[in-house]
């Protein structure tokens, strides 16, 4: 049986590309086995660990997964709960019983949360094809109205920084409340709108210069001016 | 999908659920001149699939780039009476596709010489409209439609035209008609798993992965082709389908030619 490895670690591959040939290889992530070959199904980077070939999508598009922490906007409400837009035409559901640890009278639902509110929630389960979220546990909750910034998927690790170093520095230096949602959304809130603009510019800079060194210092300088 | 496995097992042994071989057509019944108002008509049954085609002649001004040719159009409606899958309303993409594919097969075969439709060059020409309706849709409306359309055209007779006014006297008939030159024969092949089957029934169409319609003319040349369905075909499969359509097409053509 002819075995062949066609790619190397971290190589960028495209749909249809044959990554390896041979029965021993195991596809993981965004690649599949077609007869003898392991084929990539997306544009992404390859990682190889023993026989496991994994492709991670480079797409900027957020794909919800259980456990994700997301920021959304309430778009509708009915007797059973709310629905929230989490970007890119995706909608998730918040059932009444998952909204809070305290009791919410069904007639007084809109006092608790209504259309237009911003929320920080976690994706807890899937019911049929719809994702369900919860704001029951800390730190998830309804947020004070603030600015929502759409960021690139690939920028998120940089915005958070190693062990949160970047995001914590931003929060301290700007005095803003900043929350990063895994759905490519960043929430910024402060009573002074100037501070919000500072953070917005800082994030824009991080997105455009993600690979440069000394970025943390640059951002700190920008925010403390 | 145990039902599919059963069908696959059958097909491996060259049999289909209704007992046919993979390359066998259902029984074809043909009747012509069945409706009086139409200038030409035909009823074709392939198994339980039944369609009626009617030809109406009208007149009009030729297109500026073809002043000595008449106008030609084939339309097929997927009428709800033939199958609960079809609904009323504007033509669905399926109805549009089948109309256009049948139209192309007949038009590109050059079976009708459009110059035969010319009355006065640049001024007046016949328009030949073929309308095909399914009475019962039990699979393979494409092939039935083509045969019905051809035979309706074959036995169509022109109405009279009033000499001074150029008005068409639709209730009259002359004994003049059209001579069909090349006879296109369309063969529909369905791909189910690794099998290619000819003349799919409704049940087979429901489970097929892809379909291909290939129309050939007398000299074996291809005049129209259309692949449909959401799955792809392997290169070899496409080549095999073309070969199959050649031989089955000749059989169909013989049948069509034998009808007066």
């Amino acid at each position: 049986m002819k075995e062949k490895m066609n790619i190397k670690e971290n190589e960028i591959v495209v749909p249809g590309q044959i990554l390896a040939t041979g029965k021993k290889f195991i596809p993981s992530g965004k690649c599949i086995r077609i007869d003898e070959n392991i084929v990539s199904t997306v544009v992404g980077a390859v990682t190889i660990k023993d026989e496991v070939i994994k492709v991670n999508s480079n797409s900027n598009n957020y794909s919800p997964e259980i456990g994700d922490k997301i920021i959304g906007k309430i778009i509708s409400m009915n007797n059973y709960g709310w629905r929230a837009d989490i970007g890119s035409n995706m909608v998730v559901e918040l059932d009444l019983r998952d909204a809070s640890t305290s009791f919410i009278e069904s007639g007084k639902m809109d006092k608790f949360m209504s259309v237009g509110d911003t929320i920080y929630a976690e994706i807890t389960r899937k019911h049929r094809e719809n994702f369900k979220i919860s704001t029951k546990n800390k730190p998830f909750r309804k947020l004070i109205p603030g600015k929502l910034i759409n960021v690139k998927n690939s920028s998120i690790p940089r915005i958070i920084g190693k062990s949160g170093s970047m995001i914590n520095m931003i929060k301290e230096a700007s005095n803003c409340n900043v929350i990063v949602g895994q759905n490519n959304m960043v929430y910024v809130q402060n009573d002074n709108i100037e501070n919000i603009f500072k953070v917005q510019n800082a994030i824009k800079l991080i997105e455009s210069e993600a690979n440069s060194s000394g970025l943390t210092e640059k951002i700190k300088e920008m925010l403390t001016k | 999908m145990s039902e599919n496995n059963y069908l696959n097992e059958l097909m491996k042994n060259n049999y289909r659920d209704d007992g046919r071989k993979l390359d066998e057509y259902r029984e074809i019944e043909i009747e012509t001149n069945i409706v009086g108002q139409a200038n030409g008509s035909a009823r074709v049954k392939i198994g339980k699939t039944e369609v009626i085609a009617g030809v109406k002649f009208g007149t009009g001004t030729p297109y500026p780039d073809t002043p000595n040719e008449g106008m030609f159009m084939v339309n097929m409606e997927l009428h709800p009476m033939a199958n609960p899958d079809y609904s009323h309303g504007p033509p669905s993409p399926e109805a549009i596709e089948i109309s256009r594919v049948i139209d192309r097969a007949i038009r590109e075969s050059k079976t009708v010489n459009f110059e035969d439709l010319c009355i006065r060059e640049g001024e007046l020409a016949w328009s030949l409209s073929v309308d095909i309706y399914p009475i019962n849709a039990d699979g393979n409306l494409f092939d039935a439609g083509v045969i019905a359309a051809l035979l309706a055209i074959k036995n169509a007779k022109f109405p009279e035209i009033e000499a001074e006014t150029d008005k068409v006297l639709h209730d009259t008939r002359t004994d003049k008609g059209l001579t069909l030159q090349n006879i296109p024969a369309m063969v529909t092949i369905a791909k189910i798993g690794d099998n290619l089957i000819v003349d799919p029934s409704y049940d087979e169409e429901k489970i097929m992965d892809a379909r291909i319609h290939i129309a050939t003319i007398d000299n074996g040349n291809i005049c129209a082709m259309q692949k449909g369905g959401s799955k792809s075909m392997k290169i070899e499969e496409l080549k095999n389908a073309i070969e199959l359509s050649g031989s089955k097409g000749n059989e169909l053509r013989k049948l069509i030619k034998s009808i007066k």
Partner: protein
Amino acid sequence: MAGKSSEPLIVKGKRLDGRKPSELRKITAEVGVIEKAVGSARFTMGETVAVASVYGPMEVHPRHKEKSDRAILKVNYAMLPFSTSDRCRPGPSRRSKEISKVISEALEASILLEKYPARMFEIDVVILNANAGTRTAAINAASLACADAGIEMRDLVCSVAAGKAEDTVLLDLFQPEDNYGQADLPMAVLPNLGEISLVQMDGDLSIKEFNEGFDMILESAKEIYEIQKNALMEKQK
């Protein structure tokens, strides 16, 4: 298809634009051209320009079209009124509806629809300039836009048409040749898998001529794959 051209279309083995019979027109490809779209691409073949946008995965509207085990595609192909020499009326025509349908099927054969149950992808392709081969340019643009959107596919979909003019089988006809075309054979190929997801034909081709055209298409599909691949890689830089 009209009669004979007054000028010969092929002189000493060269076509009016200098190409050999089996040669593709100049192709350009770019992804991420529409900022708002989840995926997008622009694909040109000679003077023909197609732009595609992808939105989704989203909930299915109208609801009754939803399939519980897989995604559905809503493809809309349109030629803009100024894209043709005689202005074409805006709005869908029977031709554009058929082309939308075959483009959808050409893509469905490659997309892993089962990965997105009960969801819909809306794919719009517009032709900005038409110089023959519009549906093939549209499919190439749509394939790239889907890959740009991160939709999982078994292969990129590579499309080109063969045809016949002056009794010669030619690849990727442009307008002057298409006007006198004797046959048109557009196809979509999944080049790494060796599969065909679209084939249409009208005109007159002997089996030998069909095979000639088919071989040209299969060869050039590999070229088109490399062009699509480069466009996707370019964005990663």
